[in-house]
C-alpha cells in the first residue's frame, strides 16, 4: 500500500499538462536522437541539460524532460538498426542481427512494431521492478566484486562464438581486435599509457561510438558503392504495416526473459545495457536451439535484445539512485543533472527526497506510455525511410555520422579514426568476419582486464580467488557451458552442414 501512496505522490508531482507536454517533446526528440547514428542517449541528455536550465524548469519538470529523452533514445536506437543495419547507439547493436534481415525480407514494419512493443515491455517491467525492489536490489551491487565481474565478462566472450560467423576462429579474431583496441590508452590500474605512441588523442583510448559508427555506417557506404544496393533493405517492396499479433504472441516469452536478463545486467554497475541486450540475445538463441533462424530474421532475435536493453536502462537507475554509481554513460549524465539540481543520490535519497524519486518513477511510467502510443503509429513513417533513394539516404547517413561523432570531442582525429574503422569494416565483412565481437571487445575489454587485476591485487596473486564465491562459480560454469555447448549440440543434433561451409582442402 505504501508503494501505491508513494506512486500517487509521484504522479501528483509529475502529471500535469505542462509536464505531459514536456514528456511528448522529450520522447519525440529522444527517438530522433536515438535513431541518428553517433548521437545516443548520453549526448541526447547532455544536449538537453542546458535547455532545461534556460527554460527555467523546476527539478521535476527537468527530470520529466530528460527521462523522456533517455527512454526515447533507447527506443529510437532500434530504428536505424532495423532499417539501415546501423545501430543508432551501442545498446541497439544486437538488434541489427535479426532486425535488418527482417527489413530485407520486406518485414521492416513488423520488426519495428515487435521491437517497439518489446521496448515497452522491457522498460515497463524494469520500472515496476524499480518501484518494488529498488531498496533491496541496491544490495545486489554489494555482491559483485572484481572476481564476479571478471567472470561475467568472461561469460559474454565465451558465448560470442555463435554470433554471426560460421567460422569460430574468425569470431575469435574479431573479439581479439576489439580487445586489442580496448587496451589502447591510459591503463586504469597504473595510470600509464599503453599503445598510445605518445599521441595525446590516444590517451583516452578509442571511443566505442567511433568504432560502431565507423564499422557500421561508413562500411555500409562502401558496400553500397560496390554493389549499388543489391541485397540491401533500401527499396525493398514493403509489406503493409500491420500489428503482427501472431509474432507478438510468439515472442512474448523472449520479451519476458529478455527483460529479466536486461534488468539484472542494468542493476550491476559494470554491466549495463549493451551487455544486457547481448546476453538476452544469446540466451534466446540457445533456448531456441537449431529451430531458430537467428541471424536470418527471427522475430525473437529482435524482441529479446530490445526488451533487454530497455530493461537494463531502467535497472541502471537503481545503482544510480541508491548508490550514486552510474551504470552507463547515460545514467552518468542523469546523475550530473541531479547533482546540478542539488540532489545527491545515495542510500538515503529514497527517504530524504521521496518527491524526487517518486516523481522520477512516475515520469518514467509516463514517458513509456507516451513512447508506445507514439511509436506504433510512427512505424508507418519510419519505414518510408527505405523509400528514400540510396543516393540521398547514404550520403545523408554519412554526414549525420560525421556530425554525431564530431559532437563527441570536436576533433578531426576521431573522424579520421571513424573512416579508418569504416575501411576495416569493409574488409571484415568481405571476409565474413563478424563485427559485433569487435564492438563488444572495445566495450568490455578494459573492464574485464581491470577487474582481473583488481581481483589479483586483493588476493595477492592467488588465482583461486577467482572462483571463491557462489556467484563467480555459477558464472564460470555458465561461461564454460556456453563455450562447449554449441560444439556438443552440433555433434548431437547432427545439424546439416552449413551451406557455404565448402572447404576446398
Amino acid at each position, binding site marked *: 500500500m505504501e508503494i501505491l501512496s508513494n506512486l500517487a505522490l509521484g504522479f501528483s508531482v509529475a502529471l500535469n499538462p505542462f509536464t505531459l507536454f514536456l514528456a511528448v517533446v522529450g520522447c519525440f526528440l529522444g527517438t530522433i536522437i536515438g535513431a541518428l547514428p553517433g548521437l545516443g542517449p548520453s549526448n541526447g541528455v547532455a544536449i538537453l541539460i542546458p535547455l532545461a536550465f534556460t527554460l527555467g524548469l523546476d527539478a521535476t519538470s527537468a527530470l520529466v524532460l530528460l527521462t523522456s529523452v533517455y527512454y526515447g533514445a533507447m527506443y529510437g536506437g532500434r530504428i536505424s538498426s532495423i532499417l539501415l543495419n546501423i545501430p543508432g547507439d551501442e545498446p541497439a547493436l544486437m538488434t541489427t542481427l535479426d532486425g535488418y534481415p527482417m527489413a530485407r525480407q520486406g518485414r521492416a514494419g513488423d520488426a519495428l512494431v515487435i521491437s517497439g512493443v518489446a521496448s515497452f515491455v522491457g522498460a515497463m517491467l524494469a520500472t515496476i521492478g524499480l518501484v518494488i525492489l529498488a531498496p533491496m536490489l541496491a544490495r545486489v551491487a554489494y555482491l559483485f566484486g572484481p572476481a564476479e565481474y571478471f567472470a561475467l565478462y568472461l561469460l559474454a566472450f565465451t558465448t560470442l562464438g555463435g554470433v554471426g560467423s560460421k567460422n569460430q*576462429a574468425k569470431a575469435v579474431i574479431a573479439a581479439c581486435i576489439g580487445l586489442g583496441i580496448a587496451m589502447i590508452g591510459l591503463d586504469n590500474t597504473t595510470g600509464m599509457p599503453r599503445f598510445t605512441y605518445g599521441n595525446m588523442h590516444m590517451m583516452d583510448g578509442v571511443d566505442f561510438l567511433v568504432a560502431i559508427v565507423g564499422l557500421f555506417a561508413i562500411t555500409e557506404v562502401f558496400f553500397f558503392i560496390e554493389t549499388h544496393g543489391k541485397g540491401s533493405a533500401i527499396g525493398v517492396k514493403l509489406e503493409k504495416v500491420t500489428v503482427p499479433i501472431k509474432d507478438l504472441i510468439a515472442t512474448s516469452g523472449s520479451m519476458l526473459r529478455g527483460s529479466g536478463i536486461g534488468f539484472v545486467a542494468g542493476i550491476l554497475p559494470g554491466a549495463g545495457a549493451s551487455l544486457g541486450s547481448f546476453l538476452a540475445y544469446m540466451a534466446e538463441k540457445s533456448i531456441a536451439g537449431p529451430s531458430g533462424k537467428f541471424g536470418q530474421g527471427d522475430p525473437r532475435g529482435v524482441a529479446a535484445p530490445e526488451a533487454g536493453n530497455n530493461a537494463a536502462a531502467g535497472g541502471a537507475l537503481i545503482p544510480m539512485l541508491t548508490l550514486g554509481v552510474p551504470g552507463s554513460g547515460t545514467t552518468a549524465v542523469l546523475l550530473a543533472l541531479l547533482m546540478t539540481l542539488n540532489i545527491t543520490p545515495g542510500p538515503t535519497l529514497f527517504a530524504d527526497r521521496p518527491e524526487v524519486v517518486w516523481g522520477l518513477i512516475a515520469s518514467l511510467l509516463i514517458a513509456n506510455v507516451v513512447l508506445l502510443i507514439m511509436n506504433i503509429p510512427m512505424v508507418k513513417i519510419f519505414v518510408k525511410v527505405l523509400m528514400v533513394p540510396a543516393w540521398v539516404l547514404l550520403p545523408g547517413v554519412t554526414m549525420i555520422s560525421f556530425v554525431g561523432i564530431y559532437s563527441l570531442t570536436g576533433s578531426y582525429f576521431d573522424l*579520421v579514426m571513424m573512416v579508418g574503422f569504416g575501411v576495416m569494416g569493409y574488409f571484415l565483412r568481405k571476409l565474413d568476419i563478424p563485427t559485433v565481437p569487435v564492438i563488444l571487445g572495445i566495450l568490455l575489454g578494459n573492464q574485464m582486464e581491470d577487474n582481473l587485476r583488481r581481483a589479483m591485487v586483493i588476493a595477492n596473486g592467488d588465482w583461486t580467488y577467482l572462483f571463491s564465491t557462489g556467484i563467480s562459480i555459477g558464472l564460470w560454469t555458465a561461461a564454460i557451458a556456453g563455450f562447449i555447448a554449441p560444439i556438443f549440440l552440433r555433434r548431437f543434433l547432427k545439424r546439416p552442414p552449413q551451406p557455404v561451409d565448402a572447404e576446398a582442402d
Partner: protein
Amino acid sequence: MASDRIFGLVVLGVALAYIASALQIQPSFLSDPVGPKVFPLVIGAVAALAALVVLLKPDESPEWPHGRTWLHLGIALAVLVGYAYALKPLGFLLPTAVAASVVSYQISPRLQTAALTGVGLSVGLFAIFKYALGLGLIALPRAMMG
C-alpha cells in the same frame, strides 16, 4: 582461399607486432600481481593462434570488386578523409555539400542529382542540427563570418 590466407598472415603479423609492443610496456611500480603486460600478451597470443587456424583452414574467397569499383571506393575514401579534416576550418556547409555530392555520385553517377543532393543535404542537415537539436555548428569558415 587466397583472401583468407592473406588475411591470416596480416592478422598474424599484427598480432606479433602487438605482442612486441606489449613487451615494451613499463612494468607496474606498485602492488599489482598481474601487471599491465599480461592481458595484451594473452590477446596477442590468442589472435595469433586464431590467425594460424584461418591460415590453415581458409574459407572460400569472396568476390572482390574490379578496377573501376576500386576507383570509386578510393575516391569515396579520399573524400571522407578530406571531409574529416575540412569540417573544422571550413565550417559545415561547404565541405558537407562537396562530400555529400561526391558520395552520392559514387553511388549513382548522375552529376546533377548528385550536386542537388549534396547541397540539399548540407542545408537541410544544418537546419536540423542547428535549430532542432541545438548543436553549435559553424556554417561557414570563421574568416567569412567576419
